[in-house]
């Protein structure tokens, strides 16, 4: 509620409240960072020191080579990359078809897609695993990335997005003799870039944070994703909090970078009826 001319004291109180809130949200991250630079035994004091006496940067190379984190990072990037590509491509194609084309079976098909949006994926772990197993894909990259390659919510978001765009340019391209595929790729897709960015971001972050499916479908350590790797690191080096915090920071940095670089698209997506 914007006040026209808030009194000075009130403005200060407002600032204080906002800063306090932000501090409460960022404090655990700062504590993670601070602990990650402490000595292994330095942390065992009550009350704990807030800052390391001497920043110990070696924690990072030591912790991150105690388990093959570079490999985990690669696997997470593969999972996130495949999820982004799969969801963006299918959301763009199906969303475009639902928004722009009148075709036989559209209404019932749309109903089917809506229905799948209702089904909670978390309840489908058992049959999905058994299907992937029957395909011989357990413990493979294909099995790891398989289940989230398509997201119904992304298709709906893109349908809404295409509906909100004017059709004039597409029609003009058609008059100029462009094929349907050319209209889609050269005219419609560039205009829909903000919507695609939103789908890509959510896909990336969801894939990056996913733990349960990778735990279920992957057995060999070679295919472990970062989240699972950090979780098992936690079990192995339970007493070494600086190392654990260093691993946690390493798991955070890529996803935070992606978010900060693209937070505008992210927040716009949330505002754009884009809740999932």
């Amino acid at each position, binding site marked *: 509620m914007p006040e026209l001319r808030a009194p000075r004291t009130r403005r200060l109180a407002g600032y204080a409240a906002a800063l306090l809130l932000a501090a409460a949200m960022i404090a655990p991250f700062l504590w993670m960072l601070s602990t990650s630079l402490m000595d292994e035994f330095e942390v065992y004091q009550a009350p704990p020191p807030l800052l390391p006496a001497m920043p110990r940067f070696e924690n990072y190379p030591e912790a991150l080579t105690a388990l093959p984190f570079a490999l985990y990072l690669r696997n997470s990037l593969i999972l996130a990359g495949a999820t982004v590509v799969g969801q963006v491509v299918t959301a763009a194609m199906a969303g475009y078809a639902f928004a722009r084309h009148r075709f036989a*079976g559209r209404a019932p098909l749309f109903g089917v897609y809506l229905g799948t949006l209702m089904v909670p994926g978390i309840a489908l772990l058992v049959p999905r695993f058994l299907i992937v197993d029957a395909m011989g894909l357990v413990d493979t990259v294909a099995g790891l990335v398989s289940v989230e390659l*398509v997201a119904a919510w992304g298709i709906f978001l893109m349908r809404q997005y295409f509906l909100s765009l004017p059709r004039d340019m597409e029609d003009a391209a058609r008059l100029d003799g462009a094929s349907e595929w050319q209209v889609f790729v050269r005219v419609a897709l560039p205009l829909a870039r903000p919507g695609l960015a939103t789908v890509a971001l959510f896909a990336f972050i969801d894939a990056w944070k996913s733990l349960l499916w990778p735990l279920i479908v992957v057995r060999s350590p070679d295919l472990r994703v970062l989240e699972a790797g950090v979780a098992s690191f936690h079990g192995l080096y339970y007493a070494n909090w600086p190392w654990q915090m260093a691993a946690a920071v390493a798991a955070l940095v890529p996803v935070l970078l992606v978010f900060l670089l693209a937070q505008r698209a992210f927040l716009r997506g949330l505002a754009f009826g884009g809740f999932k």
Partner: protein
Amino acid sequence: MLAVAAIGGLSAVEWHARHLNRPARIRETLGAWVFIAPSLAHLLVFTIAPVAFLLWISVHDWDLLVAARPFVGLAHFREIGADPLFWRALRNGRVYARYVPVEMVAALAAALVLDQPLKGIKVLRVVVFLPYVASTVAIALVWQWLLHRDFGLLNAALAALHLPRVDWLGNPRTALPALMLVSAWGQLGYMMVVYLAGLQAIPSSLLEAARLDGAGTWQRFRLVVWPMLRPVSVYLLLTGIIWSFHGFTLVYVMTEGGPSHATDVLVYTIYPTAWEFRRFDVAAAMSVVLCALLLLLTALQWRVLKAEPADA
């Protein structure tokens, strides 16, 4: 899957009868189905077939080592119904979901605070949103460290205030509330952003009119803002409860369901049942219960979204 094929076939025939001799239309339909095909194939294999398969497994015996899969009716449902740990997980889920309304109040307060026209407020909004995008395992680890009985920052603060230390994650009475606290902290940013969008959608003329009528800040909130935010609130409440039943990572990393099953939730019970004890059929029966529960909540959510103008 058959149903989809039947619908597709029928409507194709019906459509064909209406639009005979219109090759352009046929081309458009073919083209559209090509655009649809990849996602439809995936949905069929990984969503629609699994629903049917889930129901099938839940009423059959499924042992990886035995080829025979006899129909057993509701035997698996009776088994989980007689299992006190299953009921414990359901009850824990019901308690766990209660962080949602508390979190909503905090999120609304945060949105009001961050809605002020102050310099640098956008940066603070991003900061408040950070936990929502952060790696959940990392969040679980740092909170486990913050909640540590002997060396955690939280207990250090309590000690400084001459309050007794609490074994947050080691005590069956506090473990679940501790996880609820972390969940609320982790999702606050999302709810704040949705409330913020709701606040900014309230026409300022309405607030201005209330002010001219002599309404104070609190009255403007209670009589104008709160009623206008009602659809957003209902949406967030149901979404939050649905999410709360998805929670796995925090339990897996921080408590492993313990101490003495105090933090066992349904998903965390399904996981070992299927992948440790290899009882896929029993896990399927549990999943059917979870699925029914979540479908009910989702149906409720959709009814609300339909009834209210969906401008959240």
